[in-house]
């Protein structure tokens, strides 16, 4: 079974990626699993300055899902480039760096610093719901998306993946804006803005009050959005949101994704990420496919 997929000019050995923020920098699991089963590594969001993120608690459990309000904790771009990147590079996998900023110009500055040839794409995080500026406040506005993406487009030759938020009325508007501005792919979805209440203390459970909902609970929403975008844009889609099984991953491909990312469920069952490629091959074969790439967009709609 041919497992290679192309995301624009980027060739991945298989369509299985970890989701940003749910895989650290690949270092933790490398001692337990063979990372070469992955199509690449997606970093936790990198920002210009070091960030401590939000106060604790910043994780809550929900029915078939979880809330997080990490708030982009990361050591900053300098430490990332000086220390972490060398460690990640050792895995010999394509690296996708997730970039987040307060200001539109932050994204440009960050993108300019991402020169390493092993970095195959920049995933612009226009969708994190847990920070006060940047990210989701950009990703809910097509004009802002266009502004940021075109600015980054001018600043780098690297492929740009624009990661969109589901917290919008019409996801296709956002996807079209990203495409028009020169994005090479879109990643969807980031988390849904949500809240959990502790009735005993009469308080939101998370110190940030709200957090982002992810996990199987959100998959039907994510799948619908991938399917909507696939029908209007020409650039590839990296699908994610709730994937917990090989069927789930194939459903995303059928709905139009060229590759998938797995986050919350892989944190619970890390083995999932590493067996996924083989399981996809087996199931794709049983379903009559001869390559994983041909699954993309094969879904037949009822009229």
């Amino acid at each position, binding site marked *: 079974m041919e497992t290679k997929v192309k995301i624009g000019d980027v060739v991945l050995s298989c369509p299985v990626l970890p989701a940003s*923020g*749910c*895989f*650290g920098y690949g270092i*933790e*699991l490398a*001692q*337990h*699993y*063979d990372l070469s089963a992955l199509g690449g590594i997606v970093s*936790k969001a990198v920002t210009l300055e070091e960030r*401590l*993120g939000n106060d*604790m*608690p*910043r*994780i*809550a*459990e*929900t*029915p*078939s*899902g*979880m809330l*997080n309000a*990490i708030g982009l*904790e990361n050591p900053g771009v300098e430490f990332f480039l000086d220390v972490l990147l060398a460690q990640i590079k050792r895995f010999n996998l394509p690296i996708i760096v997730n970039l987040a900023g307060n200001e539109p110009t932050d994204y440009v500055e960050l993108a300019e610093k991402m020169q390493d040839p092993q970095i195959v794409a920049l995933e612009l995080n226009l969708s994190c719901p847990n920070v006060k500026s940047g990210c989701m406040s950009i990703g809910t506005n097509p004009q802002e998306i266009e502004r940021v993406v075109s600015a980054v487009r001018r600043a780098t030759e690297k492929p740009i993946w624009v990661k969109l938020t589901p917290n919008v009325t019409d996801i296709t508007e956002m996807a079209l804006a990203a495409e028009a501005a020169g994005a090479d792919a879109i990643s969807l979805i980031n988390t849904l803005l949500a809240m959990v209440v502790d009735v005993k203390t009469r308080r939101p459970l998370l110190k940030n009050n709200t957090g982002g909902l992810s*996990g*199987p609970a959100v998959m039907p929403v994510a799948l619908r959005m991938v399917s909507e975008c696939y029908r209007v844009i020409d650039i590839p889609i990296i699908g994610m949101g709730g994937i917990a099984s090989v069927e789930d991953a194939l459903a995303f491909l059928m709905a139009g994704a060229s590759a998938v990312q797995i986050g*919350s469920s892989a*944190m*619970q*069952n*890390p*083995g999932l990420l590493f067996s996924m490629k083989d399981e996809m091959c087996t199931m794709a074969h049983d379903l009559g496919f001869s390559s994983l790439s041909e699954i993309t967009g094969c879904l037949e709609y009822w009229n």
Partner: protein
Amino acid sequence: MVNLEHILVLEKNEQVSSKVHVLTFATEGVPQSKPGQFFELKSPYFLRRPIGVMQQSNNKISFGIRLVGKGTSALCGLSPGDRLSALGPLGRGFDLRHVSQPGDIVIVGGGSGIFPLLYLADQMRTSGLIQGLNQIYGFRSAEECFLEVEMCQHKNNMTLCSDSGGLDFHGHAVAALEAFLAEASAKPSAIFSCGPEAMMKSVVEVGKRENIPVQVSLETRMGCGIGLCRGCVVDLKDDSREAGFRRVRCCKEGPVFPGDKVIWS
């Protein structure tokens, strides 16, 4: 590569008090864990549940589980023969490198914090530190004390405290610690503590006052338990940093930390 996920088979589920069960599993292929390390146990709910090791030897591993909510209820409802996925051993355990002399250790625990300390005590004993090992465990009431049953082979130098009386010491575990220190002939070289945050905080203060290093094992809400998500962070004093502290993962750099470094929430 070291296996991270293990399928444990339940051998025994003992209810040792109204709120506490001890689950014992067969552990073929599970690496030996250090006291203070924990496992992420699968539950029927979305997130796994972090549970410290209470005992591990001879291809068996035991966890003491306090009924808190739905996840722990599900775990305590398992039957012999049931299979359970566990990730681990996780985190860094207690640091025993500087604990060298016999006769000078105090362990102070409360609530579900007692379980990992029983393992610590057991390991210290087998490594020759038994003589001077003092354990102080606190309960709200005598009825809640689950140590009456034969969970620990060696009860010598173990003080059971109850806020409402009826056990060895009438009062809080921290009061028992102070009483112990007041009477001790020599200053202990280390205190190890695990339990409610307020208790550990007080133990750290006592340690500071008496100039005894304290190690505490913390509990935070975890998204993964394996270092991936940074959901579980703890702030540690760090003068080398501009902010005066650094933020570390409880699941990876912890859950055991030097007490005097912890910035309590």
